[in-house]
């Protein structure tokens, strides 16, 4: 093919604007395609979750649920643990997806290509969060279904399902500032994995994924109350186990806590991120990993 034909492409000036949502969508699809190219990883994720549910199903047989019901979560340890497992992907998504994005883009070397376009990095973040949100939702549905099949006493109806949707969005919103701050840490320290990993573990432990936090000594429980996840978990459990909706006072108070976290969290997290980002552009370390 001749140079003439190729030149032809550049004679017309198209000044268009690709709508924001189309960019976010494109960014989501890109992440999905990349992730799906690691097929075994996805299979692992599913198998792992499946066996985890089964493990806690069996463990529940030797557990006396007194402490669970004393903490207000009804008579079934299996239901208690199941809900913890079911939302764990959302937790990981909000805590780690942003830092993973930065880390991966640095690793691929695409971060500079993207920043040389007039499109803001936020598009990428939103696309990735959207991808992880959908991915986690598939897990949520599968896990709840498996739990119901194994006889977990959770109450799923239109009322609680809608409440669940709202609470999950709040869960992600209230946990994202921590994710943004840890993404900034990655830009700064370049050591992504350990930080994200520690965050996940700490949240899993202190927010009480596998046991009610009432079992924690008072000093440790103070840490629990610093984590928005503690309130998200409490609200989701309470709603699914007792079949109550957003208007229940206990859930309402959890919601207020989550909203407060979000309101306080975003300005701080974005500030930290901007400082680190500008610093990286000054030091010329955007692309290094």
């Amino acid at each position: 093919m001749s140079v003439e034909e190729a030149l032809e492409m550049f004679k017309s000036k198209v000044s268009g604007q690709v709508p924001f949502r189309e960019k976010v969508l494109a960014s989501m699809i890109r992440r999905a395609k990349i992730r799906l190219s690691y097929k075994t990883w996805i299979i692992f994720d599913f198998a792992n979750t499946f066996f985890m549910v089964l493990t806690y199903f069996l463990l529940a047989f030797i557990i006396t649920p007194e402490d669970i019901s004393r903490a207000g979560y009804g008579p079934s340890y299996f239901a208690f643990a199941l809900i913890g497992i079911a939302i764990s992907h959302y937790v990981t998504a909000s805590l780690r997806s942003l830092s993973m994005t930065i880390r991966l883009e640095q690793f691929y070397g695409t971060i500079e290509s993207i920043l040389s376009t007039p499109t803001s990095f936020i598009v990428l973040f939103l696309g990735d969060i959207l991808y992880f949100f959908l991915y986690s939702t598939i897990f949520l549905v599968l896990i709840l279904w498996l739990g119901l099949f194994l006889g977990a006493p959770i109450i799923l109806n239109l009322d609680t399902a809608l409440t669940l949707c709202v609470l999950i969005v709040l869960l992600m919103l209230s946990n994202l500032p921590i994710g943004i701050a840890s993404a900034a840490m990655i830009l700064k320290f370049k050591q992504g994995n350990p930080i994200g990993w520690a965050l996940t573990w700490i949240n899993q432990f202190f927010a009480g994924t596998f046991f009610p936090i009432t079992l924690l000594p008072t000093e440790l429980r103070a840490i629990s109350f610093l984590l928005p996840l503690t309130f998200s978990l409490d609200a989701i459990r309470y709603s699914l186990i007792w079949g109550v909706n957003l208007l229940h006072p206990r859930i309402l108070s959890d919601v207020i806590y989550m909203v407060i976290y979000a309101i306080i969290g975003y300005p701080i997290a974005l500030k930290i991120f901007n400082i680190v980002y500008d610093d990286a552009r000054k030091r010329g370390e955007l692309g290094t990993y």
Partner: protein
Amino acid sequence: MAEDVREALEIFRVRETKKDSFMARALASLYYQLKIIATYKMFLAIEFIDIILSVLIYYFVGFLVSPQALSSLGYSPDYLAFAVLGIGMSRYLWTSISRLAHKLSHEISEGTFESLVAIDVDNFRSWLIGQVIYGFTWSSMWFVGTILVGMALGAKISGDPILWFQAIFILLLTIAVHVGIGIIAAGMYIKHKQLETMLVFLSLVMEFFGGVLYPLSLLYNYRPLYYIAMLLPFTHGLEMFRRTLMNEWTILHPQMLLHLGFLLVFLPLIYLGFKIFERYLNLARKEGVLGTY
């Protein structure tokens, strides 16, 4: 300029006849691995937190477990001890097994694997053994850490030195059986390049079917799953290990002998492992996929 060329050439004039022993070379490969890992401080710190938190979770779950239920299934009524021994042993085996395959994948992605294979077979085998031993040394930190944290939290684990001696014997035997599996996994990796599936499948199977977190007798109502569990060497190793340190059974206990028999059946896996590994290696060399990833 001519001077340094001459000097460099000089090195190759002598043909060395002396060789380090097989074991010395295996140890050398271990030594350099330890040196590399010591540079990952952050990694070590996180590993440490990981140990403590994972034990702590089961410390608190332990409060929920009814001691009667546990002892009615034949164990001592302490769930923390039960979980700590399970996690300790399964993680120990799992990290050791995955170690070799991970190391291989690393060498391949760094492009150094082909030069490793280029050295002669004997040397390559000692490199392999060195990696395996290294895997176990490194992960034994995990093991010891887990048990110590568990004991600090009050897990009732036997302190009888003779029983500990027996426990270590069981551990070594279980390891020996699984070294073969690790080498096979590594071999399959060289050929199929699907590391995660292999390893993760192993870990899932070990954690779930081995009964790491719950007593296996609970699985008895789900027959097919129960049979799968019984066919795995790890299940028997873990059961013996727990019985020794929780129930203070000696090896002469009839149930223990039964488990021991099961484990011994799997022992030839080491030899088989080497054979299969080399077969895969040769296959990969034929197809020219040694260095690709």
